[in-house]
């Protein structure tokens, strides 16, 4: 059993003055070093004794880390150190990517959202990460920097397991690009916590949809789930059903069931696997109904 938890273990805090310096430190110290962004996850884990790195490397001040930019051509680029509050109130985000703002707004508390970063949320690779489903349905690309320079990882390939991401030794996440989504798209992030308290997600569902003349149903949808599998996941089976069949309540129900099938949740204190399963279906249905009705309105 865990006894009263220790004081925060001592660590060295290093503000990296360049990307190279950060990469060097990460390589040199190996597992003893960790990137520190908002620290809302890392420092709490350290206090709980779950992690004990000895060097924390702060990269928030590197160029571009806190920038948000939007162009018609490239879409939205968000520095890894952009905080949830900054993201949720950015006018480009609110205007072009309301789904992302909604997801960011659903994270933790007001105070924590001033610290919690999008990069930290994704790198954390928690199955419950609230901005990860949005990254999946928006098919974001993650630009990482490392010993071999820059490379890009699609969000779909970034989450490897609970707490495990696709970064290699010495690498860090620099920015996230959400390419310009298809014209006329709509999206929602539906989240259920405990007792309407806005807790960590028991289930989170991101739904986006857009008109597509090539699809038999004239629409395509993308659906991603949080908190119901070892990582956040896309549910292609459900998406396929919606592409192939004219959208009706029944078809939405079938897609919601397909999403439920794809989920492999576990029991924990916040909810049972059975409940999570049922909620995947419920929230997917709600999200689809919502997105579908806004799509129809516009059509």
């Amino acid at each position: 059993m865990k006894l009263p938890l220790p004081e925060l273990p001592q660590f060295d805090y290093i503000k990296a003055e360049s990307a190279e310096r950060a990469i060097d430190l990460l390589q040199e110290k190996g597992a003893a070093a960790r990137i520190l962004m908002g620290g809302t996850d890392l420092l709490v884990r350290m206090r709980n004794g779950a992690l004990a790195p000895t060097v924390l490397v702060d990269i928030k001040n590197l160029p571009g880390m806190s920038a948000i930019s939007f162009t018609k051509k490239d879409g939205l680029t968000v520095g890894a150190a952009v905080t949830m509050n900054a993201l949720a109130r950015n006018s480009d985000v609110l205007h072009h990517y309301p789904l992302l703002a909604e997801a960011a707004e659903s994270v933790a508390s007001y105070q924590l959202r001033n610290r919690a970063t999008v990069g930290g949320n994704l790198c954390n690779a928690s199955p419950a990460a609230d901005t990860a489903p949005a990254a999946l349905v928006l098919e974001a690309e993650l630009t990482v920097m490392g010993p071999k320079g820059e490379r890009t990882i699609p969000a779909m390939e970034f989450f490897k397991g609970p707490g495990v991401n696709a970064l290699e030794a010495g690498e860090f996440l620099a920015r996230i690009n959400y390419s310009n989504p298809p014209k006329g798209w709509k999206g929602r992030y539906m989240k259920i916590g405990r007792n309407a308290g806005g807790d960590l997600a028991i289930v989170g569902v991101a739904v986006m949809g857009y008109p597509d003349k090539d699809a038999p149903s004239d629409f395509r949808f993308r659906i991603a789930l949080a908190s119901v599998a070892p990582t956040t996941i896309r549910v292609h089976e459900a998406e396929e059903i919606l592409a192939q069949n004219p959208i009706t309540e029944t078809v939405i129900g079938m897609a919601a069931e397909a999403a439920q099938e794809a989920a492999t949740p576990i029991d924990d204190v916040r909810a049972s696997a059975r409940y999570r399963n049922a909620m995947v279906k419920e929230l997917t249905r709600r999200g689809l109904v919502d997105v579908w009705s806004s799509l129809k309105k516009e059509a």
Partner: protein
Amino acid sequence: MKFWINGVEKEIDALPGEMLSDLLRTRLGMTGTKIGCGEAECGACTVLIDDAPILSCVYPASRAAGRRIITIEGLAQDGHLHPLQEAFVQYGALQCGFCMPGQIMTAAALLKKNPNPGEMEIRAALKDTLCRCAGYPTIIQAVQAAAKTMSTGQPIPPLGLEESESTNAVGHIQPRPDSLEKVTGAARFADDLQFPGMLVGRVLRAGVPHAILKRLDIQAAIDSAGVVVVLVAEDIPGERNHGLVIRDWPILVGVGEKVRYVGDAVALIAAETPEDAERALSLIEMEFDALPVVVDPVSANEASAEKVHDGGNLLKHIEVRKGDVDTGFEGADISVEGVFNTPPNDHVFLEPECSIAVPSEDGGMEIYVGSQIPYADREQVARSLGLPDEHVRVIGTPIGGGFGGKEDIAGQIHAALLAKACDRPVKILFNRQESLLVHPKRHATQIRIRIGARQDGMLTAVETELFGDTGAYASLGEKVMTRATTHSTGPYNIPHVRADCFAMYTNNPPAGAFRGFGVTQSCFAVESLMDELAHTLAIDPVELRRKNALQVGHVTNTGQLLGESVGLLECIDRVEAELRRFSPEDNPFENKIVSGYPNRRRAWGIAAAFKNTGLGGGAPDKASAEVELYLDGTAQVRTSSADMGQGLLTVLQLIAAEELTLPPDKVRVLLSDTGLTPDGGPTTASRQTYVTGNAVRYASATVIQAVRSTLAERFDVPPATIKFIEGLAHVDGQQIELAEIIEIMKAAGQEPKALYEYWAPETHPLGTGGDMHFAYSFAVQAAEIEVDLNTGEVQVLRVIAANDVGRVINPLGLRGQIEGGVMMGLGNALIEEFIVEGGYVFTDRMARYRIPSIVQAPEIIPIVVEHPTSEGPYGAKGVGEVSSIPTTPAITNAIYNACGIRVRSLPVDQDWLALELAKVGGANHE
């Protein structure tokens, strides 16, 4: 590094691993910023960095470089309170005040960004800034009032609460006398105090639920750097057990002795720094011989159960008998029966326990602690040190919430033992985890209840059987479970009653006092079953309660003839009238589809409760208070009673002001210093307003009497002709000021002060008939809730709360008690569960033990009912507990009305509810 705090430039380097909160509190002595959890859950540590609110407990100090920090100490400008501070004071939004720095700083950040926030925006911003005293509705109002003042420049609009017209002070709106300190961060809670040479004390906990301690090796800890002393059981100079009623709780478990729960203490360390203490703690080796673990009270009662204590597992079998239940059930047309379960709960007072022991020069010991029972602390500390009581002085610090959880010993004895051994001051501060692990909880119970009634709804018999889990040690278990048992048949007039309770020892954390004192649990059971009965008989649930409600002239199930002050019927009527206002056309107890949400159902539920005021059961219940007049025209009231946020300071201030005819601001109240204040008795059982209130009233009256007779003699007038108006004596046409009065008294060889020992009316032990309690408070609540049939989510929308408090003394405090009581009842109904598995605590941090936040706060409609007692001050009786008791069943009954699912086990898990709904086809999942 360089940074600015509250506009002042500082140059100081961060230590490795240091958080901003540590830098502020420990190294800069800015203790206004509070630590409630250290795990980013509570918001108490909020400060502004470049105008944005952050949690300083998880903000590395080194990051502050070059930034502008604003803390609660810097919010007031040029000697003027910030409008938020002013509004919080005037509206009484603070109770214990521990969360206030966090609330105010978060709200300040919101107002900087959004000068005119709506209610939803305030709720969203303050979502995880927790207040356990939970005056959430008032907090929202205060933030809105401050916003208005900031935009209009007008003063804070008055609150518009009703005030008494027949009295000068009592019944008037009076902000807590310590408000100012608490909203500016100046208040010094125990952990905010520093003493020269003070060491850090830590306690090694067993970490196993049931075992014999076989080996203990402390050598490596003794040799570890910075360690001053390590103590084990053999080092205790005096008595080795403590306990409020039965001394069965080892101060330290010795080798060869028994560990009975995970939080049992095995060794103590005093060291120079927290890191030194922490390191040494991890170097102590323990070995155990494990014993079978007793996990619940029902199995604890089986013959084959492992014995937790030598005397067996039964702490007490409690019996209540009235009439003959068999006859009663024979006379019934119908009977209903149910078994109900309640989990243990934690108080989660926002201020974790902290004790500081300071050796005094004369060989005695001073203890600084926020305690509910300072004199009991003194006795228990003195015993363990082997000192006479008078050599120990307990100095009460402000209490950051108690709710019953600060009655037992926490770190007081351990700190004293260490301080004595090192001859240096020692502080023992629990972190949140240790707090959750160690202090006594609310009793988990299993309650079987059977009610017999006639077709017309009149009750004929009630039979109950309770099992209460008192955990490893007795604490107040017997008394709590006695209250649970005597109240287990509800506030009803029942001819035949049989109630049995088995209070059992187990290897779970001890259970003791918690607001409601056992009645919370039994009220949930009986009020749920009363509701079932109403449905079975197709009688309106309000009507059923009205028919059976206790009234003056009725005899309770313990044989007490109720002679006065039974306001239950009026509470029922007032709640019903209010229900009609919300639901003029249709039956409020029938469900309605929420428009726009076909899957949601809404309905009201109702419940009634009563709760004793005072210790009762034959326990001598007395309090002493001293009142003294001063030359500067003020008076001081002194008594050792605790204000843990419930508002006693104001109550005593108002009572003294009333009797002395002084403006309340001229009355200072000093509480809880066993060296300076006489014993006010324990702060428990909603007794302080009544018992200590009377002591203050009579002490004040005695002073006035003395003044009157001195002046009468001096001016040679009949005493009755002397009048006191606003602190002036009117004698024979002339006005004499307080200062002059005191001089006259001193000249006549009299002291302008009086000590009064007040004895509450005698009570009788259970089973002997007669008055078991000298007063009861009554409450009726109706809750309107909304259930989502698909997700099982429950939202409480409104609570109407009527309380018969005898007489309102402190309207602001009463409102706080009602709001906080309702929120605690809501947490109990929907959220809170202290999870122990096989004796091991799972909910060992706030991330796991959730308490209600402002987003769950419903609209609360308080109704005050005043059926005065003849003995209580101005007719008052207790309110602190009863305001919380009926909330839970009102909510669970509303859930039944909304969706047809009867809750028999708390808390109502949305997961469970969704499954039950699916079973009856209410939802669309399999």
